[in-house]
């Protein structure tokens, strides 16, 4: 539900009017708009510019402007100016000055950290950019960890993020456009792309979808992702959400589009394929064999995490002849004391593990280790000894859960965890038959998804000559001559 602000008719009329040349009237108007003196962080500096023989006042929000700049570069030059015919642009020494007439645009700029200078008998206000929003420093990445490679992450301020990207892509064709997408909070989304690489149709489509969004305020990119994606209800994500600038730059150089926002310490990258989510940045930074080894391990982890619980249920229920006799005897000995069927055991342990995982994310640091011990002891050791679950189920669920951490991307991680439950249910009803059926249905579903027009399993299926076949294994970097063609970039050669 949209919670629209209720604006009185008179306020609305005021806000759309041009400012009054009479200083006292505009001062009163702005005091009313900003609820001064109730609002404690508004600063109004009234001064007289002696050289021009005019009164003026400076209006700014203390908490989001750089007071030193205002002091040194605006107030001091204005007060100390001796020339009679100087214009304001010649007196004030800041890099950018804009002039606005409408109250609405002035209010917008003041909200963005500008300082507004109103001069007597002047129907324009001068807006000086001196924004200084407080933000975090650049830190190490916590969610997408690599051993070999850069470790910076994005922060909540867009200019810092853009500077991190421009540090890598020092190209005049790297363009960052902005569009405002929410009505009340005036959130700006920055669309970044390399002009001579990204497909024009793609850029147009992105802008079209951004303009279609009709909400009051947008918190951050995570919410924007849900408005933009092709299929909001799908289990698998179609937009990449990353906190690493190096990964962002890799995708920019392939012809993708990047979205950035203030208050989001990440970037959205589109369009992407399943393999882009599956690979991590480190695969390329490692040497050829090391990278392929990591990918191979990741593939095994993917197969294990999705299938292992389901296969256990299928084998113990429908295909016990598959298990070698000794192992079968061991399993049935431990299972004999457990009162539950395999599926109940597996579901109990899976839910328990999901609870541990969610709790572990949110537990406060001081009691973290204690909760860890409690979880391990109670849910592992004690449950087995109380014969609620058999030890082999604990091994299987733990193995599956551990393997799911190998997949780095958070969106895909959730997809695999949810898919696992679908596999478990069908394994209970149909055994291996059900598992294969779900697998086929899943693969054909993935094949039918597109992310902004790019088929989801490219380049494995729609085969593009020269796309490098960067799917399960990767090639020597020196042999990669072409950009992946499924993003339809304008320039397909890498050299």
């Amino acid at each position, binding site marked *: 539900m949209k919670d629209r602000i209720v604006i009185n008719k008179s306020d609305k009329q005021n806000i759309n009017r041009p400012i009054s040349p009479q200083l006292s009237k505009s001062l009163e108007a702005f005091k009313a708009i900003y609820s001064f003196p109730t609002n404690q962080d508004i600063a109004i500096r009234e001064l007289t510019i002696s050289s021009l023989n005019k009164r003026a006042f400076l209006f700014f929000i203390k908490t989001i402007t750089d007071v030193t700049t205002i002091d040194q570069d605006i107030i001091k030059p204005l007060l100390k100016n001796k020339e009679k015919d100087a214009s304001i642009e010649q007196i004030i020494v800041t890099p950018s000055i804009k002039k606005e007439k409408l109250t609405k645009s002035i209010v917008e700029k003041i909200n963005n950290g500008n300082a507004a200078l109103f001069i007597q008998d002047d129907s324009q206000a001068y807006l000086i950019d001196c924004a200084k929003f407080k933000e975090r420093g650049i830190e190490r990445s916590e969610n997408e960890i690599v051993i070999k490679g850069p470790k910076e992450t994005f922060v909540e301020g867009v200019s810092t993020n853009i500077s991190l990207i421009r540090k890598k892509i020092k190209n005049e064709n790297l363009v960052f456009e902005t569009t405002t997408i929410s009505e009340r909070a005036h959130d700006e989304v920055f669309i970044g792309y390399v002009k001579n690489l990204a497909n024009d149709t793609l850029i147009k489509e992105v802008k079209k979808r951004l303009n279609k969004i009709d909400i009051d305020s947008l918190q951050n990119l995570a919410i924007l992702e849900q408005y933009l994606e092709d299929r909001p209800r799908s289990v698998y994500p179609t937009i990449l959400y990353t906190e690493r600038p190096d990964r962002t730059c890799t995708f920019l150089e392939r012809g993708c589009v990047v979205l950035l926002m203030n208050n989001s310490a990440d970037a959205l990258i589109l369009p992407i394929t399943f393999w882009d989510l599956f690979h991590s940045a480190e695969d390329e930074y490692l040497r050829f064999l090391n990278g392929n080894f990591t990918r191979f391990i990741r593939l095994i982890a993917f197969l294990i995490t999705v299938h292992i619980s389901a296969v256990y249920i299928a084998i113990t229920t429908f295909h016990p002849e598959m298990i070698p006799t000794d192992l079968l005897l061991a399993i049935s000995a431990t299972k004999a004391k457990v009162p539950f069927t395999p599926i109940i055991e597996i579901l109990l342990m899976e839910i328990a593990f999901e609870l541990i995982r969610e709790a572990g994310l949110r537990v406060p640091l001081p009691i973290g280790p204690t909760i860890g011990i409690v979880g391990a002891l109670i849910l592992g050791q004690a449950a087995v000894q109380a014969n609620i679950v058999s030890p082999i189920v604990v091994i299987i669920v733990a193995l599956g859960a551990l393997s799911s951490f190998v997949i780095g991307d958070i969106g895909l991680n959730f997809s695999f965890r949810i898919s696992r439950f679908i596999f478990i249910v069908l394994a209970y009803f149909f055994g291996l038959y059900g598992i294969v059926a779900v697998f086929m249905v899943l693969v054909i579903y993935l094949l039918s998804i597109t992310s902004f027009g790019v*088929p989801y399993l490219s380049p494995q299926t*729609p085969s593009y000559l020269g796309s490098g076949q960067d799917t399960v294994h990767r090639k020597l970097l020196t042999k990669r001559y072409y950009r992946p063609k499924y993003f339809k970039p304008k320039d397909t050669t890498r050299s």
Partner: protein
Amino acid sequence: MDKANYKIGTKEFVATMLLIIGISVSDDTSAILFQTMKNTAWMQPILSAIIIIIPLILLIKVVNVYKDKDMSEIIIHLFGKYIGSFTLFALWVLLTIRIIIESAIYTNIIETMFYSKTPPIVIYIFLMVVCGYIAIKGAVHITSIAWVVLPAIKISFLTSLLLTIGYGNLNFLFPILGPGEKVIMKESFLKASIYIDFLFLCFLLPYLKNRNVFQKASRIALPILIVELAIAFIIFLIFFDYSAAKLQNFPYHEILRYIHVGFLTNMESFFFPFWLMATFVRFSIYIYINLHIVRKVFKIERTEFLMPGLLALVILIGLIPDSPSFTLFNMKLHYFNILSPIFIVFPFLLWIVAYSKGDFKSG
């Protein structure tokens, strides 16, 4: 039904051919051949391929001449409106009967080999529903999924054949000419419908990148299929003698029950998932082609709504035989004998009519 924004490439088409025709290794085709051709069953894929090469070449030629028409339009153009529609309808009936017999046989395989306590109707419904869902996604995606699962299936098939080394007796191959050349030639001719899927896959022409894909894919797939089928039948022969092989309905699955790797004694459940994947692909593409022909013959646009009807028809008729092991075996034997002459003669007819219409000269 077809919402993909790209077309089928050579790789995917080859994968589809390999999966659809190659999977006949694992059903009772081999048992049928062992019954009729005794110990020369392994010659049948090779000789049948030689027999059908000319019809296949003629078919490709006819298809290449009419570059902007798909198969049903070619048939109607060549044979006229009434005979053409009747031909399409006949093809549809043949395909439906084929789906019914094959799906009943595969359900029987799953039921007897792996799920003996499950009522066959449940297995049948599940198989058909899943294949129906995959078929609705469209030809492009089905062939894509064939390409995705092909490596796994072929590796598992190869592994299962490799694990049979050491068992069996090479002497079972002799006498080489078995029942005599006359029988061999006659049976090769009568069982050439192993390869009839080449004809049915022509209906996927509008979704191919270009007409050459069909030609290239046939050239790549046919030799591989010949080698695959021949080697598999030789291995069945070496493993069981022909007299034992003809008594079993599904020699491949029996072999899976025999082989073992070290401490793993029962391997059949390891190979079951891969065989299942090929089964799903095969029936999905059959159902898709079936609905495609329905669209052309009966001029219905959104044939995906007919899917439940078609699936119900297949399931109900497929469940009719009370003792499927014998009934379906014999039905399939005779059905092969009916289909083969049709498969061999039909491209000749197409070519002759196209030639006499003069379409080859104008190019």
